[in-house]
């Protein structure tokens, strides 16, 4: 299970140009200056550090901090 603090740390590392601590939880990454490559790096870090695997068909559900946390809670056994 990944916490919001852990997720924000991952985002801060993947996208050092933004202030991850102040990133609104419910705003889509794409609208917060996080591009497709940053997003791929965030998802890879979630998989490597927390075992959370997001298949391509679920990407629309993990496009924000809130979305990822909700998805992680749903897949608690994986994460």
């Amino acid at each position, binding site marked *: 299970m990944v916490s919001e603090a852990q997720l924000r740390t991952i985002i801060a590392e993947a996208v050092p140009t933004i202030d991850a601590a102040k990133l609104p939880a419910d705003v889509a990454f794409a609208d917060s200056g996080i*591009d*497709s490559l940053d997003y*791929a*790096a965030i998802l890879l870090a979630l998989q490597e550090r927390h075992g959370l695997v997001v298949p391509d068909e679920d990407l629309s559900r993990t496009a924000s901090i809130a979305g990822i946390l909700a998805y992680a809670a749903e897949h608690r056994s994986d994460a």
Partner: protein
Amino acid sequence: MIGITDIAYHLPGKRISNIARKQEFALADNFITEKLGITAVARKNDEQETSDLCVEAARTLFSRATLRPDEVDCVAVVTQNPDGHGLPHTAAVVHAKLELPRHCLTFDIGLGCSGYVTGLSVVAASMEREHLRRGLLFTADPYSKIVDPTDRNTALLFGDAASVTLLSDAPVWQIGRFDFVAATGQRDALSVQADGLLHMNGRAVFDFSATAVPASIRRTAELNGIALAEIDRFVLHQGSRYIVGTIATRLGVRDRTPFDAANYGNTVSSSIPIALARAVAASDRSVLISGFGVGLNVASTLLRR
């Protein structure tokens, strides 16, 4: 032992600016310059064939007077976009255009971004077995033949180019042991599909590259009895600035890992030999090279001089 004696390359003069296309693809300047790292891609002329690019690279090599055409006894072409319909093999066409000797071993190698490194293994092994002395390993994979110019995943990435590497029994670079990876279940991540066009699952390619390549590089260093800290340069397939940077950062070698493709693009199997020719310092004694992509495959080895 067979090793690398010289490398020449050909980059077509024509460029397509990615900056000029940023509005078409709704991209920010910094995505193009900092993430892709490619501000323009090289394009061959429409009438140029894959073999023509090889011939241009060969002319540069022959102009240095280190080799005469009549001394060549092996010709291999790494390409997935051969001349015409792929039959005959492009190496046969290159052989004819350069008027190389009749006794030449000629063959194509149908690999993508891992093709140069794999080709070094295959050609060097063939030459040693048959006691051949001077072989030419070409790379030429003009993806402009298969890229959809409206596809934002691929249209800004790939450039056309060719390279030729002279392998001989009087090498400048000794070739070390190789590490290979062939991932299962990911062959569609980079593939030409029924529409005849290249399709890329960028996330799958990124995940594979960011995990499999650092592991391959570590194994390659171990196989060759050298620590990462002792290696002078890491020349990776120039897929994009972001992936090269990601791999280098994971290995802690970013300061020794050049990205050279900003003005010509990802040239597939030509990217490593071009970077070897342009981005390796005269003082570098050891260079680890790693090609990765289509397959999905990785091939890595160590060069020493």
